[in-house]
């Protein structure tokens, strides 16, 4: 187990140069924020859902470690074009992978870079923070507010 198992090139790249960062232009269908009180990481996810129930665009904002910022960056890009159901499936697959319950699946694509997190239990929260924010947002949106 070495540092590069966790900090894959692509993760460090996204952490340094995050994509989809900032405020989403209106209309915003939902947004949700989460923080990790232990380290002060904060992330807000904003999503626009199109007429067919497909996510048109996702953005995030926040501060945090390389892991949480890179995860937010990659996730925000990947949700575009997925239905909410597919996004939830992505969240589940990713969460299962980083907590070591499941090997990376094809569907995870770039997110497979986070597989090494499973060997760093105290960093699982960092890796899942943006995904849990997204999950919270979807749940609220589906409950209808």
């Amino acid at each position, binding site marked *: *187990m*070495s*540092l*590069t198992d*966790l*900090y894959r*090139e692509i993760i*460090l*790249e996204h*952490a*340094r140069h995050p994509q989809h960062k900032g405020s989403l232009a209106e209309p915003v269908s939902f947004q949700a924020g989460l923080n990790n009180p*232990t*380290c*002060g*990481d904060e992330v807000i996810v904003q999503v626009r859902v199109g007429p067919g129930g497909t996510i048109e665009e996702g953005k995030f904002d926040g*501060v*945090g*470690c*390389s*892991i949480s910022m890179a995860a937010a960056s990659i996730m925000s890009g990947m949700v575009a074009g997925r239905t909410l159901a597919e996004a939830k499936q992505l969240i589940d697959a990713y969460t299962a992978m980083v907590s070591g319950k499941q090997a990376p699946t094809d569907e995870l694509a770039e997110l497979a870079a986070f597989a090494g997190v499973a060997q*760093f239990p*105290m*960093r699982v929260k*960092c890796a899942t923070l943006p995904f849990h924010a997204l999950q919270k947002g979807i749940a609220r949106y589906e409950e209808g507010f």
Partner: protein
Amino acid sequence: MTDFTGVRADFPLLSTAEGRTLTYLDSAATAQKPEVVLEALRHFYRYDNANVYRGVYGLAARATAAFEAARETVAAFIGADADEVIFTRGTTDAVNTVAWAWARAALGPGDEILTSEAEHHSNLVPWQEAARAAGARLRFVELAADGSVQTEAVLGALGPRTRLVALAQASNVLGNLPLDVGAVSRAAHRLGAIVLVDGAQSVPHLPVDVHAMEADFVAFSGHKMMGPTGIGVLYGRREMLAAMAPFQFGGEMISHVEAESATFKEAPQKFEGGTPPIAQAIGLARACEYLSGLGMAEVAAHDRRLGELAASQLGEVPGVTVYGPGGARLGVVSFNLEGVHPHDVATALDQQGICVRAGHHCCQPLMRRLGVVATVRASFYAYNSEEDVEKLVASVMSTMEFFHHVAH
């Protein structure tokens, strides 16, 4: 002069095969335990285990004697009398006890609690809540430029409405030199205020004499001073304890009970409702003896030397910011690497066998004052050595390289 070279070998976790690869630099969070403490715990459970005070039989007499001897040892360690030592769960429990049992009863509208934004949450939030409940007001000592609480600033902030001063003797983040509690107490007492000292970081690392420093209350934790988890101490000046109402009702704190009312014993029992942490008190006493064996003045000098070495060497690494004072300091060093999040630093150091803390260290207001979200913190104790400092500095440099090299 105590030779600290052999100290590490007294600590099983640091001297087993796996432990030998560890550079443990998180003693401000919790300390490692010497074998003698583990042995004291084991011995109690194997030979003397019984409930205390209540039993007539020989085993109970031994348990009671061992427990009360532990109280004497801990009292002597801080210059207190045994009946001024209340065993609690830890510092947080001790501070909350005063917040519930004393502050809510003694304070009222217009009264002020003087504390600081550099406090550990455990010595801040209890006062926020007690102030709200009592209608009292929190006031904050102005922090020095490095974020620290300076004695002069405390003396200047005392006012006629100050009823309680609640401050840490030593910071768990900055490593600045300790507050002059004696000076603060004397000034506070002249104004009719009392002083609660958060001793979580001072009692483990400095010679502390609670009578000499004239504090009214001192709170500290066993686990940070090489003792077991699950125990701490509230020292209370005898008159304070006599005047304060009990707080945990039940068990040996009780004198006489009717269906509708009860009377209570004197301190310390009065504040120790329920079966106390018996084995833990005995383990803590053993830790006090171990520390006294090293000599607290020597421990303090050792920890300071490592802290100063680490601060000055880290300060020279390009891109590293060290917080706290520039020169003389205690054995706690908080720092950050430019462009690298503290969590990433801690993970990287862990990969090199170095245990440091990353986060807000339960000091969110102080983090804001320092203008950071979090810091990396290395803290030193008697089992650490210059070699540990060297490892830390070398690993910080390679971590900087890793994140900056790979990322570009």
